[in-house]
């Protein structure tokens, strides 16, 4: 197990490097929220989810919804690492003619199941998939990564209510709780705390973790899978921009990409020499 965790940590480090390089190249996109979510996305794709990069539409796959769609780089580098498409494609992020749009697009990118980008809609779609899979008697699970600012959207709580009402225990929401949104602190813009209490009140199984502790992420995902009768929310305390001190905990790096001056230092932080 220790080895497995160390493996995942190393993977996540490399994915962070890929995010920084990709965003440096595109000079457009979301840095902070991609780096805060990457550990969870990494654990999902390389530890938890059943999926098949050689057959993206494989029926037996678990489903993933990046509800905070602006963190698309985190998803794209992970899909590329899995082999859904060549890593070179990443260098075309957000460019005309590329299949990698600014926000996930199920029509273009292999491995992307639903379109996201308009915040607040992902949990509804995730629960819809969970309901459909259950109806077919399938064991597949559905995972959704949400932002804490995103929780300000009312539709999230409509979905939370419905998932609990229909006992969607094949659904797991991971809340990337980095405490920041575009205009600053989530608590100052529009306080959503306590996230855990809210999900509990809606009838969810709630697990609180450090969203950068790979051991805790893996354990929480395993626990979520074992929990029956209710959906699980993993409320993960995270750091926006995690891994690169230049970007950490800075709302200003929400939608800003590394410039030429910042790139070497960012890569150095991530233990990357090339």
């Amino acid at each position, binding site marked *: 197990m220790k080895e497995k965790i160390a493996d995942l940590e190393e993977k996540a480090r490399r994915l962070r490097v890929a995010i920084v390089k990709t965003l440096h190249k595109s000079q457009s996109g979301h840095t902070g929220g991609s780096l805060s979510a990457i550990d969870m996305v990494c654990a999902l794709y390389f530890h938890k989810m059943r999926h098949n990069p050689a057959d993206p539409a494989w029926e037996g796959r678990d489903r993933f919804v990046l509800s905070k769609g602006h963190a698309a780089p985190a998803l794209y580098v992970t899909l590329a690492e899995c082999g859904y498409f060549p890593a070179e494609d990443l260098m075309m992020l957000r460019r005309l003619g590329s299949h990698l749009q600014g926000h996930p697009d*199920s029509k273009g990118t292999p491995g992307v199941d639903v379109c996201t*980008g308009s915040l607040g*809609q992902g949990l*509804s779609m995730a629960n*819809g998939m969970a309901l459909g899979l259950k109806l*077919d008697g399938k064991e597949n699970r559905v995972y959704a990564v949400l932002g804490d600012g995103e929780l300000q959207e009312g539709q999230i709580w*409509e*979905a939370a209510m419905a998932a609990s009402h229909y006992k969607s225990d094949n659904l797991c929401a991971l809340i990337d709780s980095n405490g920041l949104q575009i205009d600053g602190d989530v608590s100052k813009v529009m306080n959503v705390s306590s996230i855990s209490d809210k999900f509990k009140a809606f009838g969810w199984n709630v697990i609180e973790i450090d969203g950068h502790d790979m051991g805790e992420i893996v354990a929480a995902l395993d626990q979520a899978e074992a929990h029956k009768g209710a959906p699980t929310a993993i409320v993960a305390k995270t750091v926006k921009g995690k891994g690169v001190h230049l970007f950490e905990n800075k709302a200003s790096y929400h939608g800003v990409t590394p410039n030429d001056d910042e790139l070497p230092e960012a890569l150095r932080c991530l233990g990357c020499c090339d």
Partner: protein
Amino acid sequence: MIATRDAYGEALAELGGENDKIVVLDADLSGSTKTGVFAKKFPNRFFNMGIAEANMVGTAAGLAAVGKVPFLSTFAIFAAGRGWEQIRQSVAYPKANVKIVATHGGVTVGEDGGSHQSVEDVAIMRAIPNMTVIVPADGEETKGAIRAVAAYKGPVYVRLGRNKVPSVFPAGHKFEIGKGVVVVPGTDLTFITTGLMTAAAVTAAEKLKAEGISARVLHIGTIKPLDKELVLQAAEETGAIVTAEEHSVVGGLGGAVAEFLAETCPTLMKRVGVYDRFGTSGKSDELLKYFGLNAETLIEEAREIVSRKK
């Protein structure tokens, strides 16, 4: 006479037995939208989502993403209104196989008043790429449309009404998405109509005949994609068009026909519909009269446009 929503309930219950991929969602209006008929027959494939339309749309998109054929229903004002952005992002953008069947469209909702009278929904839905927009004329066409929609792969908006409407089509009428139907032949002008205005146009055409005016009635059941061939033919052959719909004249059938003809075959035209205003309380037949959505208005407009032709 049967309400299109009743025909919907019947069609849904029938199709549910033929295709177990069909699932139905409603937002606490299953008695009114008639999805309750399906719910009774197939309780495990029916999801009441409560009064939460945005979530209902997203849930339907998720169900479609795992291979289901979701039909979701609520009143037109809430489906197209509350759900607009969810329909755009989660349904139309990914071409999700979601069928939005909105009931209580138009002013014939009646007494509930302006808040409930949806006269903009067709315009809103028509503006969304990938969206097919259907407004059946009667119960028979509704049944055919629901069948066609279930077989079609992709997002569809079907707009139905609350009240019983006169029949236009015979039993077993086959509905083809995107195809208009010439219900009455004619040479002096064409009524291009949709929904319950088609029956009114048939009545108007009969009366005009006695006056020596030959009016064609072209029913457009699919507003998007528009049957351009039949519309162009009507423009070329009759040289005058009167559109009619239980909807705003902004952006609905009249708008679609005007946009198309302006670029291909500029033609004398008049749009009958709600002239950029909200609905108001009243009995549905009173409201149809109040807004001029009847055969009398069509007759007046026909006389007028034919006189302008000369």
